[in-house]
């Protein structure tokens, strides 16, 4: 996966987040695709490049949100540093590793957001819900991207 594809992936992911309607049957949460992209970059790309992409992903998300600018960049940056430092100990091909990384990234973003929106029981429930979905999306992204790499020979 080269940097250009990663940047395009980030822009598409953030646009999807901004365009797709909330899931009524899941309590009105919105799908978050960026944690999956950030995790994929953190587990497959060079550390510095993954970190810069995580910052770009966070800033893009904040630009399309009412969130304080850079709050998501902080979350994704921290998450990328942790994941890349644990990379040698993690087998990125295992779905549960992918799921855990996606869910953890989403949880970090939520916890940092709580400093701005406040903590409540409802917010914790929502955080766990969003994290579970982000984990599933990370597994799906790894499957799709690995398949694409095999099929088209991306690096």
């Amino acid at each position, binding site marked *: 996966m080269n940097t250009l594809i990663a940047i395009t992936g980030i822009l598409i992911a953030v646009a999807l987040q901004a365009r797709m309607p909330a899931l009524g049957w899941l*309590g009105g949460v919105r799908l*978050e695709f960026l944690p999956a992209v950030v995790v994929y970059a953190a587990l497959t790309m060079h550390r510095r490049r993954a970190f810069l992409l995580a910052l770009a992903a966070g800033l893009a998300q904040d630009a399309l*949100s*009412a969130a304080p600018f850079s709050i998501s*960049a902080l979350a994704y940056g921290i998450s990328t540093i942790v994941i890349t430092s644990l990379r040698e100990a993690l087998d990125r091909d295992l779905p549960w590793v992918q799921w855990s990384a996606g869910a953890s990234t989403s949880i970090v973003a*939520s916890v940092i957001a709580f400093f701005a929106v406040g903590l*409540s029981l409802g917010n914790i429930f929502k955080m766990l819900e969003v994290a579970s979905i982000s984990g599933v999306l990370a597994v799906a992204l790894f499957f799709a991207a690995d398949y694409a790499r095999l099929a088209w020979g991306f690096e």
Partner: protein
Amino acid sequence: MVGWIVFLGQPTRFSTKLRMVFVQLCTPFVELGDYFPFVQSRRQLARENERLRQENDVLRQEVRALGETGRENLRLHQLLDVKEHSAFHTVTARVIGRDASNWWRSLQIDRGSNDGLADNMAVLNADGLIGKTTSVTRGQARVLLITDQNCKAAALLQDTREPGVVSGNPTAFSVSPHLTMTYVNRDAKIAQGESVITSGLGGVFPKGILIGATARARMNRQTGMYQDVDVVPAVDFRRLEEVIVITKSE
């Protein structure tokens, strides 16, 4: 890194410019959704109906505002110097995106400073109040919804004239957004279904815009000094396609 990010979080000129750059960069991808075949026909239909819809929305809002004027006149009919209810200068905008995060509630619209928009302008539709503008760029603006806890509107109960402040109430257990009207007089008798309108205080939202209807009232648990009233929003925030921005009220 943390210092740099905290710096970016401050409302400096640099961070505002950087935010605008990211908005400009992302918006074409957000707007790309309009060009998929399955939404093409809806887009054309919306364009055909746009003029009539604008006219209809403005007229309906003016009718509501006139109703409020009638009430105002009833109370103030002996005063000769009472001003007539103001007319609004409006800009109609199309919703092109929603908030990319789960923790804030906002919309992105396709009008910006080039169309006369600035920060803190009231946004509404024919049903009632939607929110206020924020982060305005040349071609786009973000609308902070009234259901976001950071958006607060000075409000009135239309029948009893009890004042209060309406803001979003964060909850994860319901799809429909929640509003709460706080600082309502503890002795006020609040009927269920009473209309809640903007009071005009604060200068952002003109007087008389419908916010919603009262549901349940309860004494504030922390202080017991005032009542909190649940408000059912008049607007269906899940189905917003076009909005009206009040750029000037005379």
